[in-house]
């Protein structure tokens, strides 16, 4: 199975204006495709109430205490994460779409470095991560 990094490809949500909730489950630090997808959301998405970013334990589990996060996930990926953080807050403030980040309780303490704006606003939920739970 080829597990490549996505290039500029993404998902276009512009026509799905009946959406109520969207969840992105991340198993890689490369989040550009998520940012691009979220940028297709417009005021036409009147029903959209929540956008959830689920950071897999397999990602955050590598960020132990004392780890240099910026170095561990890479400068480019780190900046993308900050962009995603800002975009989610912007969607909340502009369209009242509630952002939510789900992170394993084990790594909760590190989230403030990954999603600082969301953490500051208290819109990060901590959960026991059940791998593939949405399929069961």
């Amino acid at each position, binding site marked *: *199975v*080829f*597990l*490549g990094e*996505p*290039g500029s*490809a*993404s*998902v*276009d*949500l512009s*026509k*799905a*204006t*009946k*959406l*109520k*909730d*969207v*969840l*992105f*489950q*991340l*198993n*890689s630090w490369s989040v550009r*495709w998520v940012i691009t*997808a979220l940028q297709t959301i417009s005021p036409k998405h009147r*029903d959209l109430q929540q956008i959830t970013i689920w950071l897999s334990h*397999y990602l955050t589990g590598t960020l132990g205490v004392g780890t240099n996060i910026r170095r561990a996930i890479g400068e480019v990926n780190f900046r993308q994460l900050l962009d995603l953080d800002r975009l989610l807050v912007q969607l909340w403030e502009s369209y009242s779409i509630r952002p939510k980040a789900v992170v394993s309780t084990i790594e909760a303490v590190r989230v403030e470095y990954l999603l600082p704006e969301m953490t500051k606003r208290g819109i990060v939920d901590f959960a026991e991560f059940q*791998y*593939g739970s*949405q*399929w*069961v």
Partner: protein
Amino acid sequence: MVQSISLTILHQDIRRSVQTERSGPRSAPERTPQRLAETTMSNLHLPVETLYHIVDHLHDTKDALRNCCLVSKSWVPRTRNHLFADIRFPTVNRLQSWKELFPDPSTSPARYAKTLSIDCAATDVGAGGWISGFSRVVHLEVTAHFHFDESATPLVPFHELSPIVKSLRVIVLALPSSQIFSLIFSFPLLEDVTVIASYETSADNGDGSGKDEIPTTTQPSSSPKFTGSLGLFLGGRMKPFARRLLSLPRGIHFQKLTLMWHHEEDLSTTTALVEECSYTLKSLDITWNLGKLIQYLRPRR
């Protein structure tokens, strides 16, 4: 609230009655509460709606339901509706036990099953005609977590299992997608579909030129409306599978999409599915690069 308390009391009376009957005859006909319950139950002529209400109230209490079966023959059918609502055969041995217990499909309690879950690890899973009894199944889960010969058709016995199947979940290690679609199209009222496959679901190479491609003439003229949820968790590319859904004459109208991708082209496929369902889609879950696939695909016990 009052109704709930009354039912609870009656439930306790029933259990006492059953225990009383099991403990044998009493020496003196005392009018103790237990004796009163026994007398009441032995002459009980409940309106059928009340009986149904009592049994339905106990739907999630297996022990109580088993006791209900012992109260009276008239209680048995309604009770079996719940006792046999969810049948799971996670192993060949369990299935074999079922076949031995209920050799005649026409009289087996299979007709009460609303959910059937089976791991068809055996190639002769359909042998004995036991499947025909499950004619009222609404939710079907078939796991073919096994390497079959190229000629094997492990899903065929489940075709047209029940005309009212609304939810289908197929978990396969590797099977041609044409087999999966044949199963899907055999259920006219299907609303929810989940396909989990460890490897490529077909010999198709992703560009439509593969040998597994279903010729246009074999596409069904009428397909389910697909108004519920679609889950695709494929080890291979999503495109060959999604293309068949996108080419259905009646279209797809899912309200929820749960999609996993790991090839870049899967994102354009996701967009195509999203756009096709744009009038109905309310919930979208996208997972990228979900590793540990085999761990997840372990059959549940």
